């Protein structure tokens, strides 16, 4: 769940703060956990909510992304196999480089299994915005990965 938070907020120091706050809440409210669902799911839900809350509090205007980046022409697939040189660590680092909103949508959708509808509710955005952000995330991620793998 620490990694779920890192992927959402983008840096380990902030993630540690959020996990710390999350655990304090877990301990304070442990008596409310009735045991009829998995404790791991319950705790992870708390951590993810903490991360979403942090992102909302620190909401900034979306940054202007790379100039070669056009939403109209955006596809979410590679036109060739560009996966040579990828490893978990490089992909993880590239995810951390994504803009906040893209990264949050990407993490919730692909790692946590949220639907775009659920993401829209959690982040108070529209479902189509969630889908667009997801495609943006994948496109940017590929660019970051190309750069990271090229640098070696």
């Amino acid at each position, binding site marked *: *769940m*620490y*990694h*779920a938070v*890192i*992927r959402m907020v983008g840096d*380990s120091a902030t993630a*540690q703060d959020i*996990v*710390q706050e999350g*655990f*304090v*809440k*877990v*301990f*304070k*409210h*442990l008596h*409310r956990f*009735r045991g*009829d*669902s*998995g*404790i*791991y*799911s*319950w*705790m*992870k*839900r*708390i951590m993810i*909510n903490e991360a979403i809350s942090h992102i909302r509090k620190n909401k900034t205007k979306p940054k202007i992304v790379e100039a070669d980046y056009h939403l109209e022409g955006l596809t*979410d*697939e*590679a*036109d060739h*196999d*560009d*996966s040579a040189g*990828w490893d*978990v*660590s490089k*992909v*993880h680092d590239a995810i951390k480089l994504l803009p906040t909103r893209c990264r949050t949508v990407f993490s919730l959708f*692909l*790692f*946590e*299994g*949220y*639907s775009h509808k*659920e993401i829209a509710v959690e982040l108070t955005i529209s479902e189509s915005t969630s889908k667009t952000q997801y495609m943006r995330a*994948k496109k940017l*991620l*590929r660019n970051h990965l190309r750069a990271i793998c090229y640098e070696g």
Partner: protein
Amino acid sequence: MRDNLEDFITKNKHNFERVEPLPIDAMWHRIEGQLEPRVRSMRKPIWKKLAAAVISLAIMIPLGLEMASPMEEPMDNDPITLSVAEVYPPWQPEENKYMHLIAEKKKEIGFDTLASNAHPDLSEQLRHIDKDFAQSIEDLQRYGEKEAILKVLVRYHERQLNILEKLAREAEKEKHNAKPYEERIY
């Protein structure tokens, strides 16, 4: 063309949960500092053990699932009877890993006791996956493209896990919404 980025992440999902080490000791000291002094002074040993156990549990569960012995037999209470390994024995360790993950997730959400009409859309999706899965096993016996078919089978397992994760969240939400407002922390 399949999306190789999604495939890569899906296939390595569990490795993404341990890519950066968490400084557990430092983290605990910080958490301890934030807990109520009364709790810390009166019940420190038990409290500390409990806290350490909870943190360890939270950190180790994904790792434990990932490292679940690949040679273990699938759990007896797993209702899934479709077996790839029966037609393609080298798949046994991979299949056991997924069977274990799926069984754990089902156990966690009490899948077997869920009402049949609860979350009909998700149940329908699971039924579809089972059908597609059975079809792929037939394909596996019939055709030579084993690698490609096995990739598809991995996707089915992952989709099954995703749907079970959604069911777990739905159950959480229902419980949360059933609580009086003042008791809701999330």
